């Protein structure tokens, strides 16, 4: 096996290059513009999955045309022509969309039967930055699962514009759809596994980007958001007894589905010692630019007072509570309600006094879908305090409250 790979690597003209070249013809550019001749408002890549005129792309590529169908339209760029296209199926959770155009194709891509082995060569095809069609080469690094989100992790230099293009193996078969690149990384990129795309292809197709009728799209989105937050909530609440010990406090930690970062540092002039545990779900459901749902983050900060007086310490805690920036975007134009915030003092069942500051807003098009964010502070004498902040984006009120209750009720002061 190892020897065979070596032979491949040493081969001066690998067969795969030709296979990649054969897929190139199935990849097109897609543009979103006010009409066929106007310049693009957004662009992406797509590829033929059905010769009857069905192409696959990312949901976030076509989101403009879905949210504002009166203003923006979708076009497939075929040489010099712009062919009007229509979105017929979406899977917002996995960032996939199917687009239909009024023309037939001679051929479509082939799907792989499984996934490559870790380290195998793979290729991503697309139109980076609206330039020439490009092929990037890289390696398959396995699957990544975070709650409801499943992605292929790969080391390929992806660029904006290649979103929606195919990721193929050495045999020229599609293994996934290019989706994103970790911003602060060295070509750490992600693709959506092909089985999710094939599942979407089996679903019923209805035109979703009709300029005069929003309801089908809104209803589809609502249902998908509902499903994804339900899945996340179930897996969080399933672990309602998993605890994290942090600086003399015991708190709830949804261990299985989140990734956490731990750090320990001293405050200004060594007056305090802060232990931070930051957890987040690495994945989200894109709704529109800069607006995501179906994700959450949690941050615990255990603060130990070293030299501050009681009043200074409390003052600092109150400042922290007021200063923390909220992640929820307030009043995204015509899309969310305004942010409503309140502060409340309470005592949890573990007899810990808490000051909670929370904010809520809701998505206008999707009933029962809210962004809930909270920050709280608990203090034990003048020595120890716990700051907790978290945000839940696109959750139902029932699930948001249930998770918040779990987090708040779990805060315990460890008696030493």
């Amino acid at each position, binding site marked *: 096996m190892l020897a065979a790979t070596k032979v491949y690597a040493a081969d001066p003209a690998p067969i795969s290059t030709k296979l990649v070249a054969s897929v190139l013809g199935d990849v097109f550019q897609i543009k979103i513009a006010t009409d066929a001749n106007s310049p693009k408002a957004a662009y992406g890549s797509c590829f033929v999955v059905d010769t009857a005129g069905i192409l696959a792309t990312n949901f976030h590529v076509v989101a403009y045309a879905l949210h504002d169908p009166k203003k923006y339209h979708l076009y497939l760029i075929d040489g010099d022509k712009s062919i009007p296209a229509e979105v017929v199926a979406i899977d917002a959770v996995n960032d996939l969309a199917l687009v239909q155009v009024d023309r037939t194709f001679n051929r479509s891509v082939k799907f792989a039967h499984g996934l490559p082995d870790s380290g195998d060569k793979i290729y991503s095809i697309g139109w980076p930055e609206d330039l020439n069609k490009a092929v990037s080469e890289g390696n398959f690094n396995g699957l990544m699962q975070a709650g409801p989100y499943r992605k292929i992790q790969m080391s390929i230099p992806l660029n904006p514009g290649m979103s929606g293009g195919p990721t193929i193996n050495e045999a020229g078969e599609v293994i996934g759809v290019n989706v994103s690149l970790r911003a602060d990384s060295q070509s750490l990129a992600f693709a959506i596994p092909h089985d999710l795309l094939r599942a979407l292809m089996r679903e019923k197709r209805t035109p979703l980007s009709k300029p005069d009728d929003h309801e089908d799209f809104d209803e589809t989105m609502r249902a998908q958001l509902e499903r994804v937050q339900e899945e996340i909530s179930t897996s969080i609440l399933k672990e309602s007894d998993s605890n994290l010990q942090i600086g003399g406090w015991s708190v709830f930690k949804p261990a299985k589905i989140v990734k956490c970062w731990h750090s320990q540092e001293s405050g200004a002039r060594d007056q305090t010692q802060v232990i931070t545990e930051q957890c987040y779900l690495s994945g989200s459901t894109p709704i529109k630019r800069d607006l995501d749902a179906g994700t959450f983050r949690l941050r615990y900060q255990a603060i130990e007072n070293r030299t501050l007086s009681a*009043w200074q310490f409390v003052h600092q805690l109150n400042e922290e509570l007021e200063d923390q920036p909220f992640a929820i975007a307030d009043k995204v134009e015509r899309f969310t309600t305004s942010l409503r915030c309140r502060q*409340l003092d309470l*005592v*949890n069942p573990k007899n810990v*006094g808490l000051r909670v500051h929370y904010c809520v807003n*809701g998505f*206008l098009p999707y*009933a029962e879908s809210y962004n809930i964010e909270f920050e709280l502070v608990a203090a034990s*004498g003048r020595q120890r305090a716990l700051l907790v902040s978290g945000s839940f984006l696109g959750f139902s*009120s029932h699930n948001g409250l249930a998770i918040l209750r779990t987090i708040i009720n779990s805060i315990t002061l460890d008696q030493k």
Partner: protein
Amino acid sequence: MILVKVHEADHIETHKVEIFPCVIGRSMHCGIRVDDPSVSARHAEIHQSTDGYVLKDLFSTNGIWQAGGKVKEVRLGARESIIFGDVQIEFLTEDTLERTHDSKLLPHEHTEAPHWLTVKIAAALFFALLIGLAVPALEQYLWYWPPEKFGELAGRAILLWLQLSATALAISIFCKVNLKRFNFHKVLLLICLSFVAERLVSNFMPSLVFNLHNLTGAKFLKHIGYGAVIYILLFRLQRYALPKGQLRYRRWVAGGVSVISMLIIELVIERQLGERSRMADLGMPIPTLGPSQGSDDLMFAIGLTIAATDQERIRQLERLESGDD
């Protein structure tokens, strides 16, 4: 009743004495104050006995002199003239007054107006309001400037005002405090009574006290209050417990004991009270003294916020729809 006429350098001051014993001296705590360096802080005392009035020397430096001789005790006749250091003081008993019907002898400034209680209550309320507004404002200035929550500020001011005015009222009614002569003891008494009131309130309305505890220096004042109670009690009790000759030290004894007691309160009792009281001092929510809300109340509050969000959503959707049409 006795009339006391103090012959000072440039004028004669007349006092009407009805409550006995009455101390004459340079200190401002004396019933009759004689501001002259030759007069001791507590120079002499008038007692009422079964057969008239007696003036007693209170171990003063310069003593009391009658008819050129130094005396320890004088039985006050109808009209006596006694020398206190360099000051001459005349004593006129009731018999003299009745006989002479000398209305000019009666001082005017001590006649109480018939509506004195109303005036005192109003003044007490006014001063308490001033303090109630000033303290939280100062606190906001020191810690949370600029004050973002004026509602909270006003709430605290009203709470403090209620507390202070209630105690000021109690003092002015029950102790017959003359607000014109608001001395050190009475200020201490006000502070300690206000904290007694606070303790009482804390049993019935914990969240109210929780808010009061957010005030800067509340703990400091509270301890001064404790110290004041001890000081006043000791100061008064020593008169009955100690021999007369040692009374001159009672101020020091009371002060020392109250300072030591405050230290004990701070170092022993406060530490023993532990987490609870310290949390209250910190202005943090505390389980037993703090608000009695639980996580269900939070869920209810968020539920209300969500309902408000829903209403806004419906309103906005309607507006969008009508705007589109």
